[in-house]
């Protein structure tokens, strides 16, 4: 497949090689993050007028799900403020390598070198999301917890252990980054093979060894590449490229498919459906149950939520994969189950985009008063404090969502077909999976478009 190396464009490489542009953006993001914690703790408890809720769960979420992930993949990870304080302490520097940092530098345990902890962390946050997304103080506590866990992880383990193995957000960004039209790859693997120092992994005076513990020479998928471009800085042979590529290219690579990632796909797809029902649906009882954390109703909600994403959805998918197997066996192999689960990556991403379209455009007008009065203290910094709530694109949204969902179904179906071919099967093997995707899309259309 064709690729275009963006670093061949004027200014791109100097901008990426210099640490300052990235550092400035990271610092601004860190400032916003700390201000969000501050606002959540001392600002108004009214969520839609507090910077922490409006900027984190509406503005940032819109940026992440509608722009960053679909286009830049893990682009957000390259400017994410959460690991920065820990990383800077670990390195002993905020910019270029110098001296020694702090920390024990332990290796991350082998048994935990997967994304199961990220799956658990996301699920945990998702169970409390009705409260987290609406109460500024809870948002502040969750954000602060992210910051401290990342700090602790940096001081105990080597490199970005938090991002790679713990971050609840990083897990799904990594999964969905496989569909992004951008990738960081080496230009010639032979150059890497011949390069004995492997400075892209060990670091040198120009940059740090890959914080994500990835050897760029072996990169075939975006999943665990944080796009921090340290390898671009440290490669002495100018062998690292930022490629523009066909979207979804990683999905067709059979290597590196794993059960933890497959379950991440179920968790994300199931959560998109559950969120659509809880946050956008007309069922007050479900909303109340999701909100009343600790009550019997909430435990019931949590049980159904967990059963849906870990049991019902994977169970139905397993059934679909089984139906696609040859009648003689009807026993799906582990490989087939995991491989076909990657068809849920485009389906899940488009489900989240469709959900986010509703969520974001219905609430983004809260941005204007929150800009002028971020703490709800009666300020009017930019004269927009009095701007009332207005849902945007209300008439166009259902059509837009339907297009996105149907596009996702087509993409998922094509992926299923190609995975079936790769597994030496035919359309018969892919068909039940396509039917599964069709049913999920119908469900989402019902929930989101009505």
């Amino acid at each position, binding site marked *: 497949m064709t690729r275009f190396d963006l670093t061949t464009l004027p200014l791109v490489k100097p901008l990426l090689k210099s640490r300052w542009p990235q550092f400035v953006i990271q610092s601004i993001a860190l400032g916003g993050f700390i*201000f969000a914690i*501050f606002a959540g703790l001392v600002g*108004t408890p*009214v969520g839609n007028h507090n910077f922490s809720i409006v900027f984190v769960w509406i503005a940032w979420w819109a940026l992440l799900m509608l722009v960053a992930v679909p286009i830049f993949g893990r682009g957000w990870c390259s400017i994410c403020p959460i690991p920065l304080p820990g990383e800077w302490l670990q390195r002993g520097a905020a910019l*270029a390598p*110098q001296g020694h940092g702090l920390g024990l530098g332990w290796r991350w345990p082998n048994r935990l070198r997967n994304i199961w902890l990220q799956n658990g962390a996301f699920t945990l946050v998702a169970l409390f999301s009705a409260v987290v997304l609406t109460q500024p103080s809870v948002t502040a506590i969750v954000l602060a917890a992210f910051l401290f866990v990342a700090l602790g992880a940096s001081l105990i383990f080597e490199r970005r252990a938090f991002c790679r193995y713990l971050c609840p957000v990083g897990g799904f960004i990594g999964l969905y980054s496989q569909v992004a039209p951008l990738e960081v790859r080496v230009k010639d693997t032979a150059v890497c093979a011949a390069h004995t120092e492997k400075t892209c992994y060990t670091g040198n005076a120009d940059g740090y060894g890959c914080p994500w513990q990835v050897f760029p020479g072996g990169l075939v998928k975006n999943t665990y590449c944080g796009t921090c471009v340290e390898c671009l800085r440290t490669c002495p042979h100018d062998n690292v490229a930022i490629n523009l590529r066909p979207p979804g290219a990683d999905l067709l690579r059979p290597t590196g498919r794993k059960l933890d990632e497959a379950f991440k796909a179920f968790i994300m797809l199931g959560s998109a459906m559950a969120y659509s029902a809880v946050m956008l649906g007309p069922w007050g009882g479900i909303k109340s149950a999701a909100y009343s954390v600790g009550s019997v109703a909430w435990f019931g909600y949590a049980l159904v939520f967990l059963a849906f994403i870990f049991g019902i959805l994977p169970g139905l998918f397993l059934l679909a994969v089984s139906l696609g197997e040859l009648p003689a066996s009807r026993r799906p192999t582990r490989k087939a189950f995991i491989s076909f689960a990657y068809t849920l990556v485009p389906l899940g991403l488009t489900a989240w985009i469709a959900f986010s379209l509703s969520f974001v455009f219905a609430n983004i007008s809260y941005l204007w008063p929150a800009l002028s009065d971020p703490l*709800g203290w009666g300020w009017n910094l930019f004269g927009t404090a009095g701007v009332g709530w207005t849902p945007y694109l209300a008439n166009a949204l259902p059509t837009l969502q339907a297009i996105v969902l149907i596009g996702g179904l087509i993409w998922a179906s094509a992926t299923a077909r190609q995975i079936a071919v790769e597994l030496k099967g035919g359309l018969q093997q892919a068909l039940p999976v396509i039917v599964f995707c069709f049913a999920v899309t119908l469900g989402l259309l019902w929930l989101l478009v009505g």
Partner: protein
Amino acid sequence: MVASRLNTEFAARVFVLGIALGLPLAALIARLADKTIELRARVAEAGGWTPTDLTVAVGQPLILRLISDDVLHGFALGQSDGPAIDVPPGQAVETTLTFDRPGKYVFYCTRWCGLGHWRMRGTIEVAGTTADSTTGQPPLYVTLGLNIDALHEAAVTPKGAPSATRGAQLGVALPANYLTQDYYRAHSPAEVWQALRAGSFSTELTDDEVWDLVAFVWRSNTTPETLAEAKTLYAQNCAACHGETGAGDGIAAAALRDKAHEAQTEFGHLTQAPADFTNADHMLGASPALLQGKIIRGGMGTGMPYWGPIFTEVQTWALVDYLWTFQFEYK
């Protein structure tokens, strides 16, 4: 080279610290420098007004920034004709009050924000040396020595709703004393019915026609304008418990009636079902002065708020007049 790197690193650290800590610090400094008094509103169960007690000197403007932390609240001064100010959640609304007389003023929430809405009150202590020229008269129920907690069941009641219009059409020339405001306010409808029934001018009338005369007497002591104003007051302040039709079936009635209701811990377990103004036995045995007392003093733990510091005397009497519309037909 090394020195240059150190300088760059130092600049980077200053930059990031400036951004990360600068915003919160700037916000805190701006807040400390702001001298406007912030009056925050939360539903009563979550604390009500904060602060609850304010002080200001006579003639000195009291600038308040009203902010609701949860639901829509309203702000108004008790015993004042000033308009209520809505306080939407998360938004700041500023108002300036200036008092020309010393004293203690009550401010309260004007929006039904929760079951404990009526408890959302606070005071403004206005200090000053200006002599208060008004001489307070005790309310009529006090002057009359009424026990407003005593039972007041009517000795007699009509078969249907008495009609003031029918009463007027009877053409009976009532003695003037029955039509005075003092007489009306001091007697219950049942007492007036008994007095009229005993009069020589009513010997030809049926019992229900005498009730129509009572309704006529009651209507003679109010005006359509008063009733219209009182209807608004009733809807804003009374209907949540007593119901729009006066039947004691407002949205908050269940919580007051049901001892097992979760809000009872807030109310104190002594609450009662709100009075049913459509109940003739109960209403026709009460005088307007008695109802005035109940409104002013409240129900002392029963859940009926004390409205004395909130309503003006005119408003209280207007409300009393309006309550009789649940018994008598005025049109």
